[in-house]
């Protein structure tokens, strides 16, 4: 696959993910991930260094199965979580997308994100870097790995998957 094709394919998937999160189309969002996907939001060790190994260091979020993401989706949809009631309105902006690898069955991407959100008369934002590994699944592409480095990790009350 050419870098241009990879960029077009990858960008489309990232934009789609952003839109599905903003539109709260949770099941469609989950369908973007492979069954064995790794979803990782590292924590920070200090100001300059983030965690590098999710099995010996604490992450902000770490799952290596899509079913764990489904738990979180179930939770926000259940109406039984105070933290997501009311749900914040979100606006995912993704830019600076670069192709790190353009294989026929795998694409690796780097991008930056900013998620503005509004909750109970307050507007706030998270921002940082995305690193994605996309895998070909027939004619579709899915997210096999999503690493989200949140740069403003001094967290006002909470941070959840729909805010990054």
């Amino acid at each position, binding site marked *: 696959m050419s870098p241009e094709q990879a960029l077009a394919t990858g960008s489309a998937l990232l934009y789609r993910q952003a839109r599905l999160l903003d539109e709260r189309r949770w099941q469609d969002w989950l369908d973007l991930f492979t069954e064995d996907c790794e979803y990782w*939001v*590292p*924590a*920070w*060790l*200090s*100001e300059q260094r983030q*965690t590098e190994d*999710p*099995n*010996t*260091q*604490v*992450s*902000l*979020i*770490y799952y290596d199965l899509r079913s*764990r993401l489904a*738990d*979180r989706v*179930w*939770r926000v949809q*259940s109406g*039984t*979580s*105070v*933290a997501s009631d009311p749900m914040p309105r979100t606006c995912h902006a993704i830019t600076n997308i670069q192709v790190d690898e353009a294989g026929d069955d795998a694409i690796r991407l780097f991008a930056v994100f900013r998620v503005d959100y509004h909750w109970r008369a307050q507007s706030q934002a998270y921002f940082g870097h995305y690193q994605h590994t996309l895998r070909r699944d027939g004619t579709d592409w899915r997210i096999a790995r999503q690493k989200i480095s949140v740069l403003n*990790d*001094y*967290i*006002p*009350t*909470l*941070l*959840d998957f729909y805010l990054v």
Partner: protein
Amino acid sequence: MNAIHDSALPVPERYLRDDPAAGVFDVHRDVYRDPALFELEMRHVFERHWVFLAHETQLPKPLDYLATWIGRQPVLLHRDDKGKIGAFLNVCPHKGAAVCQSESGNRKFHVCPYHGWTFDARGNCVLVKDRAQGAYPAHFEQADTRLPPLARFGNYRGFLFGSLNPDVPPLEEHLAGISAFLDMIVDQSEHGTEVIPGRSYYTYDANWKMQLENCLDAYHLTSTHPSFINIAASRASGGSSFRNIDIADFVDPAIPSGSYTFANGHGAIWIHTANPEVRPLYRQYDALKARVGQQRADMMLKTINFTVFPNLQFSCNACIQMRVMRPLAVDRTEMRSYCIGPKGEPADQRKLRIHQFEDFFNPTGLATPDDSRVYESVQMGLRARSAPAVGLGHLRGLRQVIQGPDEFAREIGITPLTSSSGRSDVQDETVFHGSYREWARRIKAGLASEVTP
């Protein structure tokens, strides 16, 4: 008996009515919302007594340093080249800049960013820039140029505490009965305990005592965390390999439980564990039993939450969380949350511990965000000034409280001031009383000491 908030009463009696014989324990709502009281508690509860600073494994190597706080005041811990940790105020003796700008790291010297005075890990000023040319008077030459050392600094089995006031009892005496609970964490491994790297700092917009209470509040579990309880239940029934807290611990009312208050404001609750096998520590059960005895091993596998007053808390269930509270304003609090683990535990046990921790305790997890939002709901509700001034949140279980140790306390060899035990659905609220009594005692003593004769 005087009505609470009678302005003729002195502080703190105006805010706390404590009469167990009459079945009364009333906390005035201003305790959570009055900035003037917040100022008093910073001065007299935090800045005149022992406060938790850090765990020594947060600065493991020679020349590691860590910046932290006592109340509102900046503190710097620095391990010297021999491995000894010093504790200082993070303020330059020259014009007052914070000499250390970053939260942690490793360095030999702190060079003040303003005029370049330089301090070693023992707090000595090793360089006053251009001192010889300074035409300094004798007064300067005699002055103390060190970083101001904390008046008291103590290490209880790796837990570091400091005080700005020299006139405090020895640390062990301050910890009183709660040290048995710290021991229970440290003794989970023969090598002691450690803070697992990877921290989360978060804030919530509510009073710090929301967290102080909530850590020992079993009453909120089924109503604040039904989403987590449901997920735990579905994982259990689906045979998921990823188990966390077992919900039986919280919803089976017949399970035994208890709570204790200790001298100096500390408190603890315990709940028997229905199925200890989901806990990482259980994988070491036989070795643990052989080393610490069956009774202590079983204790380590219970759900135990405790407070080391005023700013340190532990939640020990599937895994262990260490929380450090830092009040920022009457309605804003910073939390530092860490995962604690036995040193040298097997890799699979450590991995499970970490993922259980992230799942439940992180501010990005499935339970803590619900707590934080609830604190904010309380703070919002407290704006209702025409509602009754006294809250009813400290009375559950009061008829059950006994003075001194109960049978279980005697069994495990602790000496609480009060005990309460029984079915887990009592979900006792009297365990907060000890902290408020200490809160009142400190404010009273502090105000008295400020009165000029």
